[in-house]
């Protein structure tokens, strides 16, 4: 009962409840706009959280993630353009249902499947995070170093098909993390005489640049998206008979969303497509898939909402962000001087339990807000794209300036955006770079602290049992990711060979 008490206290003693409602609203609107991913919608709010208490800020950001997953399905169903990557699988049957005049039914299914998925994911999050974090309480400097290496080892799984490029992105991130004072001696490094760099490059700035600025630089060269028709989009919630039919695909979506969510690098998109594929395999009417099957909407929408909660398991327990959105949420923690991971439950239990309570409210609020917000969403989707790009960038530069009233930092964010653009053009995944930035300090400081403790003896890293365990886990994770990558590559080559 103590955690429940913590959660209730954290929610009522802060602005977390209004934060959850505002976050869901912002998330749905942001998710509904093609080109605004959940991470961008979250990053745009990140500078505003500086003035908030930690519970409100974290609940607000996490609620944006929840809302954006439903919001992404709106244009996916109405105009065949997924608002978020993880809504891509929803396009297949959602848009077919809209073509048959059943857009409202598809949106209702998306909303309810999302609610079921979000609540299921929350239960998994609450059950899994604390035990993992308890193990991590015994951490020493070598263990923290090994934890950082474990975080970096997920790069292999985040590399989108090219390990070399993923590693390069991680190296760039680590290089950025070395700017500022040396963690042991305080000697300034890579500051180029610029006072704004004396305290280092904040992960927040890297995220704003990589997620928001890069995306707008890409969007300016993309064709405009289609217009949505409000006429056949009256939201209709599924009746009892339909709910029975949807039980199986939502169960499949829940299980797959759990596994993909806790696996760093997998994320909502893979979960949604896998759930769609498995729902079709286990369906009584597989022939309806692709032709407007309600099950084809429910399974991916449930799976991607499960991920909104389960992706937070590695973040809260070990401090490892497994997705772009989790990385932005990590930025929110860092803004408030909190380091997610083993000590979070000790140092700021009210934030963790407040987050649990906030996610519960956000998921319920998603249904209430989702029922009434469809018309404004359609209005927003139909706004001209040039204005969207202009206002998003105006909000980005204002938000970045507001953090430290620094024009230099605005320029820095634009520079990171350009680096992100070049990396994207070269098909380099951005998330390993974010991982490098957020883990760089932890890895370097604990590596050097450990060697200081051992008098330069490297055996400290394998004599410490926790460190050894984490290093072995890192090796296992990297090997598994490589095995999966090579397996997928071999399969691709077989398919290409068969096609030619």
């Amino acid at each position, binding site marked *: 009962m103590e955690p429940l008490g913590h959660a209730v206290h954290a929610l009522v003693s802060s602005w977390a409840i209004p934060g959850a409602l505002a976050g869901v609203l912002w998330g749905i609107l942001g998710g509904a706009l093609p080109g605004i991913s959940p991470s961008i919608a979250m990053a745009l709010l990140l500078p505003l959280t500086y*003035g908030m208490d930690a519970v409100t800020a974290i609940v607000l950001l996490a609620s944006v993630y929840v809302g954006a997953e439903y919001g992404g399905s709106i244009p996916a169903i109405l105009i065949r353009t997924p608002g978020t990557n993880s809504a891509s699988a929803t396009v297949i049957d959602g848009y077919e249902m809209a073509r048959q005049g059943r857009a409202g039914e598809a949106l209702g299914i998306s909303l309810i499947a999302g609610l079921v998925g979000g609540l299921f994911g929350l239960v998994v999050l609450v059950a899994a995070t604390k035990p993992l974090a308890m193990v991590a309480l015994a951490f020493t400097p070598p263990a923290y170093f090994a934890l950082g290496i474990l975080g970096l080892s997920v790069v292999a799984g985040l590399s989108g098909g*090219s390990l070399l490029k993923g590693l390069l992105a991680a190296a760039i991130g680590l*290089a950025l993390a*070395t700017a500022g004072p040396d963690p042991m001696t305080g000697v300034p490094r890579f500051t180029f005489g610029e006072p704004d760099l004396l305290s280092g490059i904040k992960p927040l700035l890297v995220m704003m640049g990589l997620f928001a600025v890069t995306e707008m630089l890409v969007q*300016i*060269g993309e064709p405009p998206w289609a217009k949505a028709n409000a006429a056949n989009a009256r939201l209709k919630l599924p009746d009892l008979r339909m709910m029975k039919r949807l039980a199986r695909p939502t169960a499949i979506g829940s299980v797959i969303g759990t596994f993909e969510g806790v696996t760093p690098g997998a994320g909502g998109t893979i979960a949604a497509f896998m759930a769609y594929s498995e729902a079709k395999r286990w369906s009584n009417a597989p022939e309806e898939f692709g032709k407007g099957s309600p099950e084809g909407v429910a399974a991916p929408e449930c799976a991607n909402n499960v991920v909104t909660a389960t992706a937070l398991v590695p973040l809260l327990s070990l401090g490892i962000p497994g997705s772009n959105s989790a990385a932005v949420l990590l930025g929110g923690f860092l803004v408030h001087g909190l380091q997610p991971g083993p000590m979070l439950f000790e140092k700021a239990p009210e934030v963790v339990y407040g987050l649990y309570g906030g996610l519960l409210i956000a998921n319920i609020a998603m249904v209430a807000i989702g029922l009434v917000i469809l018309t404004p969403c359609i209005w927003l989707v139909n706004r001209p*794209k*040039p204005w969207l790009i*202009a206002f998003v960038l105006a909000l980005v530069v204002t938000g970045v300036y507001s953090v430290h009233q620094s024009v230099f930092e605005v320029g820095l964010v634009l520079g990171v955006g350009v680096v992100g653009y070049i990396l994207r053009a070269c098909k380099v995944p951005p998330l390993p770079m974010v991982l490098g930035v957020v883990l760089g300090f932890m890895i370097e400081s604990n590596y050097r602290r450990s060697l200081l403790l051992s008098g330069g003896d490297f055996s400290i890293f394998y004599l410490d049992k926790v460190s050894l365990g984490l290093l072995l886990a890192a090796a296992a994770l990297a090997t598994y990711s490589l095995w999966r990558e090579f397996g997928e590559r071999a399969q691709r080559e077989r398919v290409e060979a068969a096609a030619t």
Partner: protein
Amino acid sequence: MKLNAVDLTLGVLAVTAAAGYLYETAQIPESLLEDAVGARGVPLAIGGAMAALGALLCFRGLLGARNGEPSGGERPAAASESLPNALRPHLQALALLGILATYVALLPHAGYIASTALLIAGIAWFAGAKRSWQLPLIAIAGSVFLWVMFDPVLSIPLPAGAWWESR
């Protein structure tokens, strides 16, 4: 043998960046509190890794191998797509960056409201918004709205502009 231009370009960029990073690493001053690794130790390792990865990418680019590159997702240039058309998105991004850089240069002098109104109008105009009397009006209204939200409401001071302050 066909080169892989993307890998080769990325590799060259990575090696160049690594060289610059390693040069700057060498400029880090030594400290009396220096430990065994030192302030240069970790940056040296990162720079070395970056250079090695860049060299490997160059090698892969020269071999023309498509190792690990998913065949989906990459939009192959259509036979009819001329080079200027393929470059167009990059040029548009460059121009947008130019507008943003102008904004950064203008902000301390012209102040938040004027610079942001120009930024919004400039981007919307460049991105293809309808040219009408509404364009400057929406830009000014948007800029004022953001200023009200941040400055008076959230108490975050935004630059008034040196040009106006000196008058």
